[in-house]
């Protein structure tokens, strides 16, 4: 029945043992508390309801996914094997045996089935479109789960989605209750190396060692993890310097402080461990504005942006120029064979002149109302740089500052903007992340989707076809084509590709050793006091 079985379990178990062995060689210290700074606070601690790195940052240690991603590829966690039927309508998972929830109940296929049907399909953002065609999850035995789809589901896509969108939660705690209001949404119960202890809103979350962890008694090494919510970046930088916290992830402190701490021997500063969490800083256009609907204007604007300067001053060098909707960490789906628009303000001016937008009496060619996303320092600076750069090519930009709901409503619901900027994260596979930026027909009000009034049949067809294409090579080609189109048509400028940055106190060992480390379970993290 199954034709393409990829059993990586054995090899990766060996790899795990190897890395563990390496760690042992460094005299692993047991015990201790790791303290982590978080800038934002996700108040729902249920990864099956909220797909967000801010959630995984905490729950990754408590609730494990079926499949995780390592530098060596996808590795089994709660699922040990995965395979797909030829027609792509059925995906079968083998589940790990002998795993218990933190409350002592065994983990079985019923949990996977319940979570998939009740949460992944119905309630989980992003996942609900991914699993839209999921019809049932059958449990032929307690440790086998069969996902049944009404349309073909590429295994590659399924597996790529699982680290983020594949967290099962215990059925026995949720069944028959109002899932959205379950107390376990804020007091998570999972199978992970750490057990939830306490969540003080606005302050901290504490999790402690799970003595009954399935990887064996020696794991985890830490006794406890504490996440502290420190919104103020200066205070956070001070806290990490004062040794009050050990790690600050996802650019939790200002880039100036990151650049400063880079030279401090007490800290590891870098982008390692974020390969799966790459984002694009964007410039978004409202194509309903006839000026911006003109492709030459958009190209001129691109030429007017000194991306390298912005990377150096704003991102402190931790970034590279964007090349369309797929970042360079996108694997086979990525190509750098695309058109580019180097910084050339004179060219930009000429292009604008030719497009019919000469400088007017007031000294400007035209005026733009720009909405910056209020996501913190570098997004703000990027907006202000955009304003600077545009004024150099005689375009006046008025920045309309708003808070998050105001921004989201203004851009994605009311379309009350000319240009906007923000950043958008790439999640392993374009089909579950960036294609929504280009696909037309997105319902009004969905944030981070194509609300730009831009439409291309060719792009739409490519996106749909790629999403259900089972052959990885063909899929990759389609995405290369999409990437080219996105750089040619410039519906959105994917200006800067940047990973996130962590500042880690060197007392932490074994940190940032997977491509989505901050979301992972940290079973092998230890602290050298």
């Amino acid at each position: 029945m199954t034709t393409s079985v990829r059993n990586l379990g054995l090899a990766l178990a060996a790899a795990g043992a190897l890395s563990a062995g390496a760690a042992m060689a460094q005299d692993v210290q047991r015990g201790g508390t790791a303290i982590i700074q978080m800038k934002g606070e996700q108040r729902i601690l249920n990864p099956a309801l909220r797909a967000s790195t801010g959630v995984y940052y905490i729950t990754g240690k408590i609730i494990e996914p079926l499949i995780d991603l390592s530098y060596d590829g996808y590795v089994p966690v709660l699922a040990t094997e995965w395979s797909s039927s030829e027609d792509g309508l059925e995906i079968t998972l083998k589940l790990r045996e002998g795993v218990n929830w933190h409350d002592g109940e065994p983990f079985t296929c019923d949990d996977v089935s319940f979570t998939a049907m009740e949460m992944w399909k119905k309630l989980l953002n992003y996942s609900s479109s991914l699993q839209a065609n999921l019809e049932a999850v059958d449990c032929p035995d307690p440790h086998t789960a069969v996902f049944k789809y009404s349309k073909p589901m590429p295994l590659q896509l399924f597996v790529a989605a699982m680290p983020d969108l594949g967290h099962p939660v215990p059925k026995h705690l949720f069944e028959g209750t109002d899932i959205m209001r379950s107390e376990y949404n804020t007091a998570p119960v999972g199978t992970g190396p750490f057990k939830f202890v306490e969540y003080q809103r606005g302050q901290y979350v504490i999790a402690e060692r799970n003595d009954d962890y399935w990887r064996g008694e020696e794991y985890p090494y830490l006794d406890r993890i504490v996440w502290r919510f420190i919104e103020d970046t200066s205070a956070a930088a001070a806290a990490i310097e004062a040794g009050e916290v050990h790690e600050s992830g996802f650019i939790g402190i200002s880039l100036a402080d990151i650049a400063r701490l880079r030279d401090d021997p007490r800290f590891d500063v870098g982008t390692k461990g974020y390969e799966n969490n790459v984002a694009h800083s964007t410039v978004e256009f409202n194509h309903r504005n006839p000026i911006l609907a003109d492709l030459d204007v958009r190209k001129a604007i691109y030429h007017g942006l000194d991306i390298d300067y912005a990377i150096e001053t704003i991102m402190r060098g931790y970034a590279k120029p964007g090349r369309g909707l797929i970042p360079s960490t996108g694997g086979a789906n990525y190509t750098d064979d695309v058109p580019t628009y180097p910084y050339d303000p004179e060219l930009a001016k000429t292009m604008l002149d030719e497009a019919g937008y000469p400088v007017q009496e007031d000294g400007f060619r035209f005026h733009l109302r720009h909405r910056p996303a209020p996501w913190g320092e570098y997004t703000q600076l990027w907006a202000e740089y955009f304003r600077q750069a545009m004024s150099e090519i005689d375009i006046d930009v008025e920045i309309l500052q708003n808070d998050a709901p105001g921004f989201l409503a203004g851009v994605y619901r009311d379309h009350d903007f000319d240009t906007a900027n923000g950043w958008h994260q790439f999640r392993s596979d374009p089909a579950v992340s960036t294609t929504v930026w280009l696909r037309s027909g997105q319902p009004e009000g969905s944030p981070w989707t194509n609300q730009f009034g831009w439409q291309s049949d060719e792009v739409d067809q490519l996106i749909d076809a790629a999403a259900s294409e089972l052959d990885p090579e063909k899929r990759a080609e389609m995405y290369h084509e999409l990437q080219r189109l996105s750089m040619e048509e410039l519906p959105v400028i994917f200006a800067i590709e940047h990973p996130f940055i962590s500042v880690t106190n060197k007392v932490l060992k074994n940190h940032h050793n997977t491509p989505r480390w901050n979301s992972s379970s940290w079973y092998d993290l230890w602290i050298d006091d």
Partner: protein
Amino acid sequence: MSLQSTELAPAEPPRLVVFWRRYSRNRAALLGLVIFTVVVILALTAGIVEPGDPLRRAGAPLTPPFTDWATPLGTDQLGRDVMSGIFYGARISLLIGVVATLVAIGIGVLIGAIAGYFGGWVDDVLMRVTEAFQTIPNFVLLLTLVAIMGSQIEWITVAIGIVSWTAPARMVRAEFMALRGREFVDAARNLGVSNTSIIFREIMPNALPPIVVYASVIMALAILLESALAFLGLGDPNYASWGNMIGQGRSVLRTAPYCAVIPGIAIVLTVLSFSLLGEGLNDALNPRQKKR
């Protein structure tokens, strides 16, 4: 006193002269006036001394002060000239200070005057409204107003005015309640002067001195409120305001402290000058309060 009660005493010097004499007796107030004048000059000459957009790229990012004469006070993260920001920021701070104060005093005077003059149920209703505004923490209300209308400078200014009018309203009301019983008001009523005229022509000029003094307090608070908003990232990014500069400068506080400290000092000095100005005005306008 002379027995001849019809002889006139020698004429007094013009009011302005008397005002200035009283004002200049307070040396701190003179200092306040000097600082204030400097701020005004900064604001007025911004376009001459520092032509061009203060938000433009003026040099290499994070140039320290006193190293490059094109940008004497250095540049910030985006290469914007700090000195230019101080000049143009003075404009914004004064604008916000003055307009927000006018809004606050305008609303406050209107409501306070009506409540204080008419009393009774009018007073009751208006005072309940005032209490309601006073009960909501003003900064929370300000955040809400800015969240609703966005961070345009015009709106921030008006919003600051809206959250600051209760104190002047209470003050005007108290003045009116005291003054409406004064004989000169009765005298005016006895002459058949209308209520509107009594409120605005008879009582108002007498109620104004303490309000003028308090205006300096509101102005200072308005500048502090704007800077706090900007610090929380809710300022208007289209203008170089000192609050914005501090808000953005704090992320480089450790490496380039001048980015936040220079505008910080500008705010402290400006607020200080308003405060000293207020004390001087108080001495000059309400001389009886200070005998020693």
